[in-house]
């Protein structure tokens, strides 16, 4: 169950590529197989296959309801806790939907950040231009959907500053992200404009290393890890929900902390 449903509306080739990349990994294959069964529940109730689909639909409905509840609970003025650098988790864990050997290699000189959607200035940004923006940093807790958490220090430009700079329609509903590793996700505008939401280019005072998302990661201490895209290649503003890599498979879309 929980197979991707919105694939048709997305970059199909990118999704297929991502899927093909994962096929040689036995653990991943096992994971997907398990994902297709209801596991414990079929034992519990002896559900038939058609029941499984209606159960899945009902659960996804509740998840969408939970998106609304979280948007309502989200306080734009409330800050996530910050920590002294002495509390940073060392080494900060690497985490992705693939192993370390598949981290994308991005050439910083050729790199361009594509901008599209409901924005006034759609010119593509070079890294040099992005580094010229006012920089800030924060030490915050990264909370993974799996339950573990780790404290790290990210530096970059406040995302609201960037959105204003490109003349984004701040009344639009969503900001979407496409990444060099074919990952994709999207967030609500309220979180995009939160003071602690940073478009980051550095980790622990050094250029963001490949394993943490070179050349840039969107860092939000108010959202779970899978909502924080790495290796961002394109940013777009939209009024229709672009979904996400994990979100389309069943992870909650809002994913707020």
């Amino acid at each position, binding site marked *: 169950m929980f197979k991707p449903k919105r694939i048709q509306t997305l970059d199909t080739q990118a999704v297929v590529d991502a899927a093909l990349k994962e096929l040689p990994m036995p653990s991943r294959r096992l994971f997907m197989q398990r*994902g297709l069964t209801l596991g414990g529940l079929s034992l519990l109730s002896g559900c038939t296959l058609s029941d499984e689909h209606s159960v899945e639909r*009902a659960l996804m409905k509740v998840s969408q309801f939970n998106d609304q509840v979280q948007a309502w609970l989200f306080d734009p003025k409330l800050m996530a*806790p910050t920590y002294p650098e002495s509390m940073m988790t060392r080494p900060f864990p690497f985490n992705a939907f693939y192993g370390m050997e598949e981290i994308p290699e991005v050439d910083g000189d050729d790199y361009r950040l594509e901008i599209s959607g409901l924005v006034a200035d759609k010119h593509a940004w070079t890294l040099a231009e992005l580094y010229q923006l006012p920089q800030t940093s924060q030490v915050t807790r990264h909370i993974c*959907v799996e339950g573990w958490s780790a404290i790290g220090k990210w530096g970059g430009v406040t995302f609201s500053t960037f959105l204003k700079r490109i003349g984004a329609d701040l009344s639009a509903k969503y900001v979407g992200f496409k990444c060099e590793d074919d990952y994709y996700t999207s967030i609500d505008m309220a979180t995009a404009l939160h003071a602690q939401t940073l478009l980051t280019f550095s980790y622990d005072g050094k250029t963001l290393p490949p394993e943490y998302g070179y050349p840039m990661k969107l860092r939000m201490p108010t959202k779970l890890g899978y909502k924080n895209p790495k290796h961002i290649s394109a940013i777009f503003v939209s009024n229709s929900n672009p979904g996400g890599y994990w979100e389309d498979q*069943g992870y909650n879309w809002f994913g707020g902390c």
Partner: protein
Amino acid sequence: MNNRDAVVHPAWLRLTHWINVLAVTLLVLSGWRIYNASPIFHFSFPEQITLGGWLGGALLWHFSAMWVLVANGLVYLVLNLLTGRFRRKFFPLSLKEVVADLLAAAKGRLSHADLSVYNAPQKLAYLFIVLDLMLLVASGLAIWKSVQFPLLRELMGGYDMARVVHFVAMSALLAVLALHLVMVALVPRTLLLMLSGR
């Protein structure tokens, strides 16, 4: 009071009891699968007995069943307080009574003739379940919304500790439930009472 035709458990109580059974079952089984994604201790739950198939599925179950638990729990609490059942059934409750009843039970002399009256260990166990479920909801909220509920997060000792509290509260709940099931097996008429009310 010991009239076999008198309703011991009103319909709303029986209904909320069984809805709670369903919600707790779904929450525990999916919770074990979520725990397995990043175990706090040096063990995992066998995946065959967990619910959801994978982490995403388990989370969908967990964050759906939580609404059933909370809504049902609120109905239970409000009706218990409004009807005066809470005060009538659970109080007074003294430690002395609990010890005396436990000793009587150990000697096989604890009476079950009148099931409309809870003995002291029963009162304690049921009150514990109510309070423990509240702790589970509170620690669960602290995990789910650690940024949005700072006070709750700090009360739990921070995000990571909230996970430990959530786990320990779940374990304690299951321990008391195991005891509860043993007692029901020893006095099977209590099961009929919870089904038919009389």
